[in-house]
């Protein structure tokens, strides 16, 4: 084997190794930037995050705009986000809930969020300590506006666009 070929191959291999590393980084870049966008582990209260994150383009909170995310703003799971689809979200301590909350004041099947015609409804599933939309206790299916906290025990959730 000529010396030249080996030398070229040697450096080529090292370069290829780093190309692999950067390709992997490229594939996961989306996640890295997502981390930078919401650098805090704990979701900020409504308004604050929008100002910090999007720089002068605050999220407009108005009725009728589709909610895309359910964000936990307080409690043990603070910072957790669930992307909303068209499926209902169940909340409770039961392991098969969509959002499993370990909160002393939550029931196994505490509440659920159901979409209907573009509007999300919160519904209490007969919990012991109740579900509150802002200050009001939820008795039947109640429409949830964007950015209004749903309180379950020590946990607070809200819909974000």
């Amino acid at each position, binding site marked *: 084997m000529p010396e030249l070929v080996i030398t070229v191959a040697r450096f080529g291999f090292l370069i290829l*190794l780093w190309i692999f590393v950067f390709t992997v980084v490229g594939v*996961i870049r989306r996640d890295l*930037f*997502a981390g930078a966008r919401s650098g805090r582990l704990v979701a900020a209260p409504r308004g604050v995050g929008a100002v910090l994150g999007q720089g002068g383009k605050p999220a407009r909170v108005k009725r009728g705009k589709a909610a895309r995310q359910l964000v936990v703003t307080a409690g043990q799971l603070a910072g957790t986000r669930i992307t909303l689809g*068209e*499926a209902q979200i169940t909340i409770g301590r039961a392991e098969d*809930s969509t959002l499993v909350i370990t909160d002393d004041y939550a029931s196994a099947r505490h509440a659920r969020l159901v*979409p209907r015609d573009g509007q999300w409804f919160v519904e209490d599933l007969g919990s012991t300590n109740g579900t509150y939309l802002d200050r009001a206790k939820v008795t039947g299916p109640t429409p949830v506006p964007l950015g209004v906290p749903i309180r379950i025990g020590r946990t607070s959730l809200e819909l974000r666009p």
Partner: protein
Amino acid sequence: MTAAATSTSPPTSTGGQSGVRLARSRRNAELSLLLLAMVLVAAYGAMVEASVLDTVTPSFWVPAAALSAVFLGLHVAIRFLAPFADPALLPAVALLNGLGVGFLHRLDLARATPAERAELATFAGTGGRQLAWTLISVALAAGLLAVVRDHRSISRYAYTLGLAGIVLVMIPAVLPPSISEINGAKLWIRVGGLSIQPGEFAKLALLAFFAYYLVRKREVLSLASRRFLGVDLPRGRDLGPVVVVWLISLLVLVFEKDLGTSLLYFGMFVATLYIATERVSWLLIGLVLFFGGAYLAYVLGDLIGGPFANFYLRANIWLDPFADPYNDGYQLVQGLLALGSGGMFGAGPGAGQPLKLPEVQNDFIFAGLGEEIGLFGLSALLVVYLLIVERGLRAALAVHDSFGKLLAGGLAFTLGLQVFVIVGGISGLIPLTGQTTPFLSAGGSSLMANWLLIAILLRISDAARRPVTGGGPPSTRPTGGPPEQLHGAPTEVIRP
């Protein structure tokens, strides 16, 4: 792609319009990364042959092809079993594993006489055996993905796993040294020609137990009693489990004569505890306990020797490797010289002299590789480890349930800690202890356990990245109705 990341791309559409979610599983990205990794492994094999044999044999591609086949098999399995799993994990691990097999094959070539080299079969020698172990381990990983369809089901067996873990840790300690001792460390079970390192599997079992236990206890453990120097100290009675694990890891240090393993178990527990409670005080308490214990073992080793003598010796070698470079310090000194002669870009694959390194196929594989690919190549490998750990932690951040968070965080941390312990050891940062380098070192137990670890991480990352689906059209779903009906209604879970 976490839920947070999904919002940056527009695949989600809620509301009354279309409501169709184009979930990105990113399996094709995984496939192309995997192919790139396999090209690297094949290139490494070719270059080794070019250096050692001075020619590239027509069959240089056989090990790389066998590896590619089995990794592609796992990739296909992931497509069916965990379609939303992290795309970066498999290719990164495959690259490390492939380079490990390539390097071990290179050692076989260097050991063999020219006559034997010609007929070195694919599955012969250290490299061949490692290749066979890889096939078995990847099959096991796929099996785990198939059996465990929901990582939360692991928590059901938490106490069984915890007991199994402790038994696995203890077996080598109670066995006679003739069966369990290799190079001064009692970590093995040797049956016939086969040696099993049960501690590697105990790691996984204990982590599952820790995660389960801490999910249940974290409320209590995060209670603070008083502030001291700006740190919330936990209550005295809550220290119990930490002290127990600390004692167990000290017993491992004494009876199995292995600092690395005991550091690994204890670090694993403290890290999981920290993830569960978010209290810095636990980290500080853990560090103080560990360094206190290690220093005590050092002092005791100096004074009374006995079970502490091995650790005392290793600490002294670490403090001054060149004090006795031909006997006690031989291993570490040879490793440092190998890294040093590798320099920035290394001698080139196959051009170093790894056989001068004792234990080059196990503990010192990183030094052996470093001599040939240099700092430039080694740092790429370290970044690959870093990326694997990062993906694990990312899965832990994104998954919704607490058990999954703790398990994924703990597993990722353990992998990182193990790399730190061994790479720190061979580079003289910490006392050298016999840990395997994950995915690189020769050894079936380590490879199997680490592939199982990756399978669990894949499973959890699949749960974390899977979009919330499974509901019927909103209009057909009753939103009102009595609770009795709700219990009968299909419960929407993140994972079906």
